[in-house]
């Protein structure tokens, strides 16, 4: 029997007011659904929340939509990891020790990262985060209104006669108590493997920094980490190995618990008076996604603290198997040789084609010369 492949969760958030605002680019669509506020929405000074729109049917040949307020997944992730990484600062790459500390932190391991650099440090590294979260979408029927408010900003003055003068009056979308729901999953496959090779273009750590990185992971999880090795993804049909670090099942469990600790304490605040916080979470262990359908209620159980999580370290599926270094190197050499052979063949083909072209040109010129002589 296979182990747990992923952990799914459904959460409910409660709050008041709007915590996640949008730009003005969806005003054209907003006019379609806020029919009572069409006049207001034809102005450009509108501060609008992010909305979730779903087509629910058709009436008289026109589509009908359901519109709800939402908190984007990016906003939730920012709130989850705000303490660890308040700002995504690429300057940290210039300080290798601090940089590796960030990569090996719980934030780096769970949230993932993308650092692109050509100048200094460890080169470009990225890790796909195992934590997937959907947007938190409003479930109750509270209806938003557009209130006229003033904004503290200097009034823009007309420079020319034709200029439009600025205004401090803004239409702001307001709402009372809101209940949101969100769902998400922790992909244990992505969680347990830290890739150190460029084979599939997903190098999470430069192998030269592996020693520092392993020390960092040890510190984060309070458990020993295995050394860098060659691993094969068990279910993949291509048996190509990747260099990387495999986290132990205990380490995975520790990181899962850390992730749920953050989720349980999620509290998103907004200066303008809006806030939202988590009220309850239910989780489900997925061993076979076809049998344990994530969207079915069966199998979910509520948690109030991380101690309520029923997952054991031994239940976690290990997606990778280690292969001996010699075998991996031999396999890699075969691939490299095949690649070089194809490259050489391409070059030969190109040369043959070029020669043929020259010959054809010469033949053409000879024909032309013959014609001119005649």
């Amino acid at each position, binding site marked *: 029997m*296979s182990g747990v*492949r*992923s952990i*799914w969760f459904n959460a409910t958030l409660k709050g008041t007011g709007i915590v996640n605002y*949008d*730009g003005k*680019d*969806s005003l*054209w*669509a907003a006019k*379609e659904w806020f029919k009572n506020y069409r006049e207001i929405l034809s102005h450009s000074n509108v501060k609008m929340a992010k*909305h979730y*729109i*779903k*087509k629910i049917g058709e009436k008289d040949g026109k*589509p009908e*939509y359901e519109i709800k307020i939402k908190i*984007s*997944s*990016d906003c939730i992730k920012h709130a989850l990891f705000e303490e660890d990484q308040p*700002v*995504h*600062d*690429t*300057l940290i790459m*210039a300080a290798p020790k601090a940089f590796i500390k960030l990569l090996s932190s719980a934030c780096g391991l769970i949230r993932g990262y993308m650092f*692109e*650099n050509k*100048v200094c440090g460890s080169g470009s590294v990225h890790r*796909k985060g195992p934590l*997937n*979260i*959907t947007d938190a979408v409003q479930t109750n029927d509270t209806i938003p209104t557009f209130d006229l408010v003033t904004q503290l900003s200097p009034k823009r003055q007309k420079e020319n006669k034709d200029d439009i003068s600025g205004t401090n009056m803004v239409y702001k979308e307001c709402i009372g108590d809101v209940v949101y729901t969100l*769902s*998400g*999953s922790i*992909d*244990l*496959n992505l969680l347990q493997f830290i890739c150190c090779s460029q084979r*599939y*273009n997903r190098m999470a750590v430069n192998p030269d920094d592996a020693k520092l990185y392993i020390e960092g992971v040890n510190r984060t999880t309070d458990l020993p980490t295995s050394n860098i090795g060659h691993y094969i*993804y068990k*279910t*993949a*049909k*291509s048996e*190509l190995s990747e260099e990387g670090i495999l986290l132990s099942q205990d380490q995975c469990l520790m990181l899962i618990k850390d992730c749920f600790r953050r989720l349980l304490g999620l509290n998103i605040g907004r200066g303008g008076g809006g806030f939202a916080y988590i009220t309850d979470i239910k989780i489900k262990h*997925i061993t*076979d*996604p*076809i*049998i*344990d*359908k*994530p*969207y079915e209620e069966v199998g979910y159980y509520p948690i109030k603290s991380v101690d309520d999580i029923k997952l054991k370290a031994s239940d976690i599926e290990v*997606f990778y198997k280690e292969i001996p270094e010699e075998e991996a190197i031999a396999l890699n050499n075969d*691939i490299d040789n*095949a*690649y070089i052979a194809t490259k050489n063949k391409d070059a030969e083909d190109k040369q043959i084609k070029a020669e043929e072209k020259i010959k054809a040109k010469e033949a053409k010129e000879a024909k032309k010369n013959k014609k001119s002589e005649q």
Partner: protein
Amino acid sequence: MKALCISIKNAGLWKYPMWSKDCVYDSNGKTIRKKFPYYEVPIGHLGVQQVANLLRVLCGQRPVPSLRKCNYTGDPLYEELAKKSRANIHSIYNDKGYIEEVVYTHKSNQFPQQTAKRNYILDNHNIGVIGGLIYWRRLRRIINDNSLFQEIITTIQNLSKVNNVQESFHAQTAIEFLNKHKTKPIVIELCKNLKKNHHTSLSNIILNEHIDAISIHQGYHGINSYLSCGSVEKIQRLDASLYVPVTNEQLKLFSNGTGAASFLEGGFVAIESIEEWSPLIEIQSKPVVEGVLIKCT
């Protein structure tokens, strides 16, 4: 034949991908993204390459790069499945695309320049200077030369007879003060030194010359300017349901995966249910189409 129903939530499409200055690396080497080809999928449809890779991940396989050249080609079964699949997009859209959302992104910018204009009083006139707020610490970083910075301080000290210049003057007030005494030889000498050390912009502000065409930090490229800039980007979001026709044997492949995957930018995908394939699915949904490969020149 069964229909595997997959829900796609919050998948993002960058509206202006061609603005990007970054490069694409593959086995062919480096290509500027602007010149790299891309697939254009008609609005209201999903692309075969996108869906095939999604199915690969749901089956515990590696995705195959659709544009970058790579030795790994993957199993063509997933392309076949994708071609037969149907998608129903729930999001609102028009000819321009799906609904846009503004997201906050952080970018590394090697030479960021503040573009805010601040009003300086130079020669008794209110003049806008590009470059944002200037303060002593920033001025020191811009000058990047202690002796030159000290020269500015001593010049102001001599002119104003104030001992602690940095406490008595704001940096902007100090520049305005130097402008008031711009005819004095000591200030003229200072401006000459500034020009010599490639700080013409600062000298121009003091002397009130060519103000419209300069910014405070013109010509400065130090390591301290390698900063992370926050900015906003527009992204189009779509929600959809995907129906994949599968046999019982093909269905077993999906047990190898984790039941969830990501799709496009930040999209969340999950296996929702398994139904019998019916003509109603075909009526409700649109086919998954092959994107048009657009080659940029």
